[in-house]
């Protein structure tokens, strides 16, 4: 950790809330500087409105309006704005102790016969050092020692009538090393992009895949989770799918890439359109050029429930 990283650690603050962002918009429209006044009457600004200079600067247009109930912010939602909203939502979450047990209920679907659709209950600690599942007879089974291998457990195969863990996903960053990650979104993007081999595709694709893994596998400190979302918004080629549907049939808003990744599929990170919390991940097979219809879901995981609990085997 060099002195710049230490400065960031010392001075870094939470991102602005949606309320603060909204108040700022009102103040700009009112042309008002100075301390906030909660019930100030708006003053119409008398400013020249030639916008050519800013348009030439390559500003991104955003219609910052609230959409109808049940839908995300109407109009065009940029990846940057979605990232900020998701970051703000993540930053508001309570801190979770690394050893805190978390109950997870996931619905996983694939197109392959070997891994049919299934709903899985399992427990992990926030840092994924430990994992547990409960057999049909109610007995708690543990996996341990995952952190030493840099692995996190992934439910894959049925054992004793219950989906359990026989697959392990090697995460690119151990939980113990999260504190040493770069704190600015750009630096985090650069760092993450170098962790996977270039054979997987452009650096932006690799960043997206790592962020998806980290958000799903770990319960990271809220501030760091927020930085991951901010980094996600800065990935080249990132865009937003406001009509995303997860494998559980729930509608959400997704971060996605404009072009398919190396395997020819399009990954999505889906957040709740109201709370902007992580809801699901999915991999889509893009439409064949010239064909009608939406992209086909090749595989996906929907987070049905994720709740801190007092211990393994305890259900909320």
């Amino acid at each position, binding site marked *: 950790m060099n002195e710049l990283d230490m400065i960031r650690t010392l001075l870094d603050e939470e991102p602005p809330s949606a309320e603060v962002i909204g108040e700022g918009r009102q103040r700009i429209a009112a042309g008002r500087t100075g301390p906030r006044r909660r019930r100030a009457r708006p003053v119409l600004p008398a400013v020249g409105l030639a916008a050519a200079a800013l348009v030439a600067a390559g500003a991104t247009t*955003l219609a910052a309006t609230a959409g109808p109930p049940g839908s995300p912010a109407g109009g065009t939602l940029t990846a940057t704005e979605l990232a*900020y909203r998701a970051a703000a939502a993540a930053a508001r979450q309570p801190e979770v102790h690394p050893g805190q047990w978390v109950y997870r209920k996931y619905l996983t679907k694939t197109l392959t016969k070997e891994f049919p659709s299934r709903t899985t209950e399992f427990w992990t600690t926030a840092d994924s050092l430990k994992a547990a599942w409960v057999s049909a007879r109610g007995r708690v089974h543990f996996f341990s020692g995952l952190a030493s291998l840099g692995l996190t457990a992934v439910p894959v195969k049925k054992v004793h009538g219950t989906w359990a863990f026989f697959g392990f996903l090697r995460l690119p960053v151990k939980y113990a090393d999260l504190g040493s990650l770069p704190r600015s979104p750009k630096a985090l993007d650069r760092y993450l992009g170098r962790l996977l081999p270039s054979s997987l595709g452009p650096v932006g694709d690799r960043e997206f895949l790592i962020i998806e893994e980290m958000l799903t596998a770990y319960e990271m400190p809220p501030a760091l989770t927020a930085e991951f979302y901010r980094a996600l918004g800065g990935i080249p080629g990132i865009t937003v799918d406001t009509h995303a549907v997860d494998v559980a049939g729930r509608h959400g808003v997704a971060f996605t890439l404009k072009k398919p990744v190396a395997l020819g599929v399009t990954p999505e990170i889906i957040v709740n359109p109201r709370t902007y919390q992580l809801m699901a991940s999915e991999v889509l097979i893009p439409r064949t050029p010239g064909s009608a219809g939406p992209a086909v879901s090749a595989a996906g995981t929907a987070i049905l429930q994720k709740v801190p609990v007092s211990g393994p085997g305890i259900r909320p």
Partner: protein
Amino acid sequence: MRARSRADCVPGGVPASFTGVYEQFFADIHRYIAGRLGRDVADDIAADTFVIALRKHGSFDAGRGPVRAWLFGIATNLVAQHRRAEQRRYRALGRVRAEEPAGGHEDRVLSWVAAAQMRPQLARALARLSPEERDVLLLVALADLSHEEISQALAIPYGTVGSRLNRARKKVRAALGQKGQIDE
């Protein structure tokens, strides 16, 4: 049909392109100001940055550099009006004992302990930098601006950015008891 924004409905209101600038950069500006002056003050000053930017946007010259650098220049000028508050913040940060991590891997705890022990020296070092050195250092650390962007934001020569940054980092490293080459 795109829904009309509140700004669209205000006579003489905010142009759509500036709204996009706000949405794109507000959080970055807020984060920079919050790091220097604290979060509560940042809410107001970050908004002020864009109000001033809107007033001045007719004079913005895209040929001189990106709008992002221009915005950080406005923000830095506003921060300069709160020097005493900034100094108080650093002194306060130097006194506050950061919360210890609740358990966890030994390596992570050790690196946290090392950083936490440096906290008072780091805060004092930042407070003792000249305003010019601190501006450059924190535009790198908190805003992730390049040397060229800092040159544009602060309207100083490119070479001056490098020399001020180098001096600032050496002073901070000396305060932390670190020696050796500074890696860019």
